[in-house]
């Protein structure tokens, strides 16, 4: 298919990132220096080309950006200072909005005020719902009945509904991702490979093992990311899925599994976040040179959530019901918009797209190798 070169696309894409990548003169350095580049999956340069030429269709079918963990090597050595790494970052934002059929993602990324508004509205809604529905008399013994006060059921229900909505949005978007990257470009994936590929997913999701390749010259982004990611996931599961098991009235011993898990998750979150904070603040390494508003928002909100969570925990142990209660509200008021906005529509959605991109990568490779084999057979 002949595509029309569209110079306006990148003007639009600027909204998802900081620059327009026109300096690139296609030496291929970024691709070659990238530790993750694989045959057929040519990292940044191909994407840069698609952006420069405004090849919208090709871009939508390109999931390379999800494979990138932004080690910054490419931007560091780029002879034209074209920042391919940041392009991948920006493209992840763009692709998120491409996959998202609801249109929220696009709205949040391109019109920042909407993201703020949504967050603030949700924030207020959460607080308001407490104000309206929370039985005031329980506040005084909030610390002792935290696991079985009557409002918990409501919170739990809300929790699950939120999880369901988020999951629905994410899953439907992943289907769109599959459509755009595999189906539409007509990669003929052998059916069996879909199942074989399934095995890959959980492991990858848990470990993000390919990220390790990016830790060239001894940087420990992977460890950092792993801590943050496992912490977050753990916390997410504990809070959203196992809320009744997590939020209990009884104070267990410090070595109880529940507390240990909680501490680990908190530590992971705190450590990962502060490393990110410091990095983005100093802008020393390539990967932290540019920060989109959405990056900051996400970090700040997650940090706030963690912080408030810790405080809730401390206050509760210190048996300070009022402080615990108010912080609990704030905690939820931050947590809810963070999960509702960030997870399906913004930065945090990569926790779903990344592992799936690896899955699709696996599928595409299988399709390509089959294609290659049949070509060879035809030639023979």
């Amino acid at each position: 298919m002949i595509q029309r070169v569209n110079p306006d696309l990148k003007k639009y894409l600027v909204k998802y990132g900081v620059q327009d990548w026109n300096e690139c003169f296609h030496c291929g350095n970024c691709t070659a220096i990238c530790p993750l580049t694989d045959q057929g999956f040519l990292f940044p340069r191909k994407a840069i080309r698609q952006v420069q030429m405004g090849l919208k269709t090709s871009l939508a079918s390109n999931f390379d950006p999800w494979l990138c963990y932004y080690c910054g090597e490419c931007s560091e050595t780029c002879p034209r200072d074209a920042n391919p790494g940041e392009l991948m970052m920006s493209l992840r934002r763009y692709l998120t909005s491409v996959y998202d059929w609801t249109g929220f993602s696009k709205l949040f990324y391109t019109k920042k005020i909407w993201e703020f508004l949504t967050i603030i509205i949700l924030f207020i809604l959460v607080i308001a719902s407490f104000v309206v529905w929370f039985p005031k008399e329980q506040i005084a013994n909030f610390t002792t009945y935290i696991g079985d006060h009557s409002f918990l059921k409501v919170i739990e229900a809300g929790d699950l509904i939120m999880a369901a909505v988020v999951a629905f949005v994410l899953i439907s978007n992943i289907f769109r991702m599959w459509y755009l990257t595999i189906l539409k470009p007509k990669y003929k994936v052998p059916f069996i490979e879909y199942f074989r590929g399934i095995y890959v997913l959980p492991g990858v999701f848990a470990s993000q093992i390919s990220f390790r390749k990016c830790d060239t010259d001894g940087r420990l982004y992977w460890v950092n990311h792993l801590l943050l990611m496992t912490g977050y996931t753990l916390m997410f599961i504990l809070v959203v899925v196992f809320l009744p098991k997590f939020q209990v009235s009884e104070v267990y011993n410090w070595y109880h599994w529940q507390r240990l898990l909680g501490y680990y998750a908190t530590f992971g979150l705190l450590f990962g976040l502060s490393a990110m904070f410091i990095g983005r603040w100093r802008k020393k390494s390539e990967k932290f040179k540019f920060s989109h508003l959405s990056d900051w928002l996400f970090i700040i909100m997650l940090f706030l959530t963690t912080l408030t969570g810790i405080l809730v925990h401390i206050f509760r142990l210190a048996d300070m019901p009022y402080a615990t209660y108010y912080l609990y509200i704030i905690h939820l008021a931050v947590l809810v918009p963070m999960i509702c906005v960030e997870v399906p529509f913004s930065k945090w959605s990569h926790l779903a797209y990344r592992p799936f991109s690896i899955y699709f990568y696996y599928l595409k490779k299988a399709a390509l190798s089959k294609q290659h084999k049949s070509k060879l057979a035809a030639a023979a």
Partner: protein
Amino acid sequence: MEEKVNTAVCFCQHTNGHTDVVDISEVAAYAEEIPGVRTVWYTSSLPIADTREITRMITEEGISRIVLAGEQPGMYKTVFAKSLAAAGMKAENVVQAGFREHGAIKKFDTDRAKAILACAVYGVPFENAAIPEESDVHPDTLVIGGGISGIQASLEIADGNQKVYLLEKTGTIGGHMAMFDKTFPTLDCAACILTPKMVEVGQHQNIDLMTYCEVLGVSGEAGNYKVRILKKSKRVDPATCIGCGTCMEKCPKKAPSEFDAEISMRKAIYIPFPQAVPNKYLIDADNCTYVENGKCGICVKVCPVPDCIDLDQQDEEVEITVGNIVVATGFKPFDAKRVDQFGYGKFPNVITSLEFERLINAAGPTSGNIVFRSQDKKGNWIFNDESASPKSIALIHCVGSRDENYNKYCSKVCCMYSLKLAHLAKEKLPDAEVSEYYIDMRSFGKGYEEFYERIDNEGINIIRGRTAKIEESGDQLLLRSEDIEGGRLIEQKVDMVVLAVGLEARDDSEELAKMLGITQDENGWFNETNFLSDPVGTFAGGITIAGVCQGPKDIPDSVAQGSAAASRVLQSIIKGKVKKSIKDISLDYIESHAKKLSKIMEDKL
């Protein structure tokens, strides 16, 4: 000329954070005083993306002529030409007062910037108004640098029957060209075509060849420069040295050979290379055991000529008077160690193009055999004839060039010399796999494109794609690159990698520029008077530049520039007068002269 021409002066200077630039506010204040200037604009405050708006302003103010002033105002010319045309005026009436074009760059050039602007407003070409005074010229000429440009300039002037001092820092003339094996695109050997010229220099009665010398200081003015020269002690009397080489044979001290790009060893007493001119020995004081600690002196004992070697000889200072100076100091190759990813200096078989050039040279340390680098007894990494030959060689273009991290400019010659090296490698090792990695193939000169085609058909893999990194992989080197045209990743294992290093301004060029009163551009190359019409002149009177020291160049261009510089010199000698520096002309003079010329032009019309 019934109607008065209304001129708008528009400043388009962007400082980009530099502070030492022409003071625009001062020039603007001056501009307002020039008769005929209706208004002063600044591009920064103009809606330059909106020609309609500018057209409206032009019509409103009744402007018929626009002077664009600034460092390089040409970038804005078209929008104003279009607006003028739209307003019904002549598009030609956009005049550029380019400060850089006429040499006003720094703050202290502000007066000249004013003069440039004044000329533009009066409609008088700056070079017509700013005619420097002339002074008598001393007929002797100093040529600094004994590379091919310097040689060419010297011969050209000497052939015109004028005395030339040819000053060279090292022990021999010939420069980088002497180190090359073949030259592109005709592949004739560099030595074959260069050495006759070198011999001609050595034997020319009008050339006073001063090797192993450095410029210490320059005083005086155009036409009559006094140049203080440090004659570094060679410790061997060139007048009596008969070049027998006994001293070198017996000398116990070794040092890396500069001529062989330090891939082989020479003695402390040495001739830079067999065809060196002058073909006399000299002692490298930095490596001589005697100079170091007073012991040894073997060379004196074995020298057949009495009193030829004087190990205690001291450096000497001389002063010469010259009328013109030609600067042809050339370049230094880019230091490949700076590019971490390529591992030059870490991996013995990652070598620079200059080293490879010596390696394949029939007169080089391995007699032209391409071999692996090996360690000698003392642990020096050198090339030794007995080592094995690589089976695969990759050449990487643009090392240190076209790179924001190192040098932004293109070094102009690397594409071609890499093609040449690839060809020679293939010729010497027909079974070897030779690959080239490039970004854009710049084969622009006469016969170059044809050469590229020829090499392309010789079984050499020429791959578009910059190599990103080189790693060690067993005995081999693993090189990662993207094949842009093939759309695939290449991970190639090769035995040897040749880095096509770019050209850089010499370290001492800043010092020299200060001494001579000439300027350098941001890359360190010397500035020419006018990029277009005077590529070899400088703003200092009587000083011309030639060859790579003005910017990267290939041999024919360097030779042409060497000759071109000589032409300026000969012209001044024939006339007996040399133009002084235009820096010395006062603003008042230029202003009044421009006024006069403009009056004459008006009268003509």
